[in-house]
């Protein structure tokens, strides 16, 4: 059957099982929006294209499905860029669709023209400029395949508006065959055997679990490996939720703001079992002195992540879940009794310090069952430290790129994907103002998201660095005289606003918010000048932490 390009796009999205798109209209996507007017696919209209990209990302993280966002050419497309880069850094499956000026105008500096495939080349897994209507269906098929397989990531499809209007015969390809793209899933059997032996022979093993374990849906396998063999587990920011935080073997997050006991444990370990993690600089600190006694097993689907930062003794390239299943069968339980006792000792000596009461109370009130998104900065680290994540896909945070303004639109995506869950955005007074316009999206679409602003009247994380490393010269990090009245602001959008200034009101406010069937903005007036500890100064050795008694 002959169809226009815009219709082919909609039909192809249906074939991919897409039922929601996050987007914003504009001149060069009018034919697509015309199709969406009566298509069975819902478009959620955000108030800014960046919000659409983050919402698609949050939807993908919460559900495991590929998120889709849509924007017009030029400024619409460039507004997606931060959201695409965020998804790229954290390996999130996303398809971004942009309109482009008409084919014959490309390169002419036409109105609202931007070379978006050129701009997004280094922040997409792959991208396409559709030059021929006959390629469109194949391109969409490939884009969804690339985005969701191997190490997932965002793929952008740029479609000139004349191609959206041209017609061709529609047939959606059944299969994809790209000779340049064949991800490895199985894992080398010899390497798995070697890894099993290394674990069996180890005395001080530690599991270091990253976002790859969540993406691969491998939390059950991680649990089995850890619990059956008595191996302590530390997680990266993106790995939180892969292993239940309250389990006796859980050490919490490691790295710059990791727990003291996680950092000590990995430094003293004789075997690191890295699972879907990439030894990022926020995790390892000073590389030369990172875990000096440890052998390293690295399980990852991306060969380029292996031996990139840390030399690996036993690399296993493939899907984390598939490999862990095989590994679990092959491992003989090592004797880790003394090691576990040592780890316990660290844990008792250095309990987590200066709890952030608001985050703890959110945990208590939700019993760890909520989906938590975060902005970036102190709010993010306190969420990671003080909310006990029990399940995969409940911690949704911009890890690699560190995008302020991520949390709220991501919460929108998460709430759309998981309508029955309670979704909290743990925010700061700085970050929340970076995508506050999405209050309209959340209210209109009846998404009962709870925004907990830890309002300390400053850009807290930057202020913390200024305090510790820039002689307390607080250059442009104070906010309070400029911040809006968040209660009035919430109300003007039709949301519920609350201002909480006393400790005794914290828990009731949270309970009240959970009961409220509307968007709730909670302005928690917390003390100024509270810092995130422990802290490893950038480039420092990770067991030399600030803010831990007797250890600094």
């Amino acid at each position, binding site marked *: 059957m002959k169809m226009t390009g815009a219709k082919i796009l909609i039909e192809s999205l249906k074939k991919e099982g897409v039922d929601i798109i996050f987007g914003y209209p504009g001149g060069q996507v009018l034919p697509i929006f015309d199709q969406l007017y009566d298509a069975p696919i819902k478009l959620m209209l955000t108030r800014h294209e960046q919000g659409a990209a983050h919402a698609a990302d949050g939807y993908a993280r919460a559900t495991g499905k590929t998120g889709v966002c849509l924007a017009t050419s030029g400024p619409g497309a460039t507004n997606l860029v931060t959201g695409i880069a965020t998804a790229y850094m954290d390996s999130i499956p996303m398809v971004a669709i942009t309109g482009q000026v008409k084919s014959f105008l490309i390169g002419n500096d036409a109105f609202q023209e931007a070379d978006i*495939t*050129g701009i997004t*080349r*280094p922040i997409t*897994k*792959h991208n396409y*400029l559709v*030059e021929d209507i006959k390629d469109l269906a194949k391109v969409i098929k490939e884009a969804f395949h*690339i985005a969701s397989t191997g190490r997932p990531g965002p793929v952008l499809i740029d479609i000139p508006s004349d191609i959206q209007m041209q017609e061709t015969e529609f047939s959606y390809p059944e299969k994809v065959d*790209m*000779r*340049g*793209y064949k991800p490895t899933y199985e894992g080398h059997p010899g390497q798995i055997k070697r890894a099993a032996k290394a674990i069996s022979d180890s005395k001080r093993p530690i599991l270091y679990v990253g976002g790859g374990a969540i993406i691969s849906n491998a939390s059950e396998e991680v649990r089995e490996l850890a619990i059956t063999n008595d191996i302590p587990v530390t997680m990266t920011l993106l790995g939180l939720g892969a292993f239940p935080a309250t389990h006796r073997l859980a050490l919490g997050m490691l790295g710059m703001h990791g727990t003291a006991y996680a950092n000590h444990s990995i430094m003293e370990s004789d075997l690191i079992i890295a699972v879907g993690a990439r030894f990022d600089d926020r995790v390892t600190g000073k590389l030369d002195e990172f875990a000096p006694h440890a052998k390293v097993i690295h399980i990852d689907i*991306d*060969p*380029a992540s*292996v*031996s*990139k930062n840390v030399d690996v003794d036993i*690399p296993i*390239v493939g899907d984390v879940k598939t490999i862990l299943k095989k590994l679990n069968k092959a491992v003989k339980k090592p004797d880790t009794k003394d090691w576990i006792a040592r780890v316990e000792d660290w844990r008792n000596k250095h309990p987590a310090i200066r709890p952030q009461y608001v985050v703890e109370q959110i945990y208590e009130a939700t019993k760890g069952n909520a989906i938590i998104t975060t902005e970036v900065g102190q709010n993010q680290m306190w969420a990671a430290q003080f909310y006990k994540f029990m399940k995969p896909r409940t911690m949704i945070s911009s890890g690699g790129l560190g995008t302020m303004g991520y949390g709220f639109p991501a919460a929108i995506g998460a709430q759309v994907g998981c309508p029955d869950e309670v979704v909290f955005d743990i925010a700061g007074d700085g970050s929340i103002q970076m995508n506050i316009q999405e209050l309209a999206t959340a209210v209109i679409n009846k998404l009962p998201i709870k925004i907990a602003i830890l309002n300390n009247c400053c850009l807290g994380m930057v202020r913390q660095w200024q305090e510790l490393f820039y002689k307390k010269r607080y250059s442009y990090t104070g906010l309070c005289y400029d911040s809006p009245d968040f209660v009035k602001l919430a109300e003007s959008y039709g949301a519920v606003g609350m201002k909480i200034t006393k400790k005794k009101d914290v828990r009731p406010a949270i309970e009240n918010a959970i009961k409220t069937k509307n968007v709730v903005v909670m302005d928690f007036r917390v003390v100024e000048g509270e810092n995130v500890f422990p802290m490893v100064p950038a480039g420092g050795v990770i067991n030399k932490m600030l803010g831990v008694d007797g250890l600094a």
Partner: protein
Amino acid sequence: MKHTISVLVENKFGVLARIAGLFSARGFNIDSLAVGPTEDPSVSRMTIVSKGDDKTLEQIKKQLNKLIDVIKVVDFKEGEFVDRELVLIRIAINTKNRKEALEVIDASGAKVANAGSKSISIEAAGDQNSIKDLLELLKPFGILEVVRTGRIAMGIDERILKADGKPEVNE
């Protein structure tokens, strides 16, 4: 250390930009890059000469392999390949040394591409060392311009690089 890398890529719009962009974004160095179609019109072949330690080269190979449009990557080892480069050199001459220049060119095995009254354009193909030697030899005449294509290379013996052949083992 210098490495000669052959890359088979889809013969598509924008692929060169992807490769060049990868090198600049990740801080890898490119000494030269030559590209052209192959016996299969859907495949282009690039020869990239790059400098770096073993770890960097391993990353270059892996990152290249991650690009969807890259079909195969080979980092040639010493003695496993032949390489050539084409160079055009223009030297200054005058009525006095014209004959001498033509003799030197002839003896060196290079060819005259164009001979004028004030300059001669010379074409030569060879490996890195032979081109270096030729440039030294011509220096006394006064070199006006040099244009080089960059190195191209292919494996010898059983090393045939084909898009549909057995995949190269990486890892």
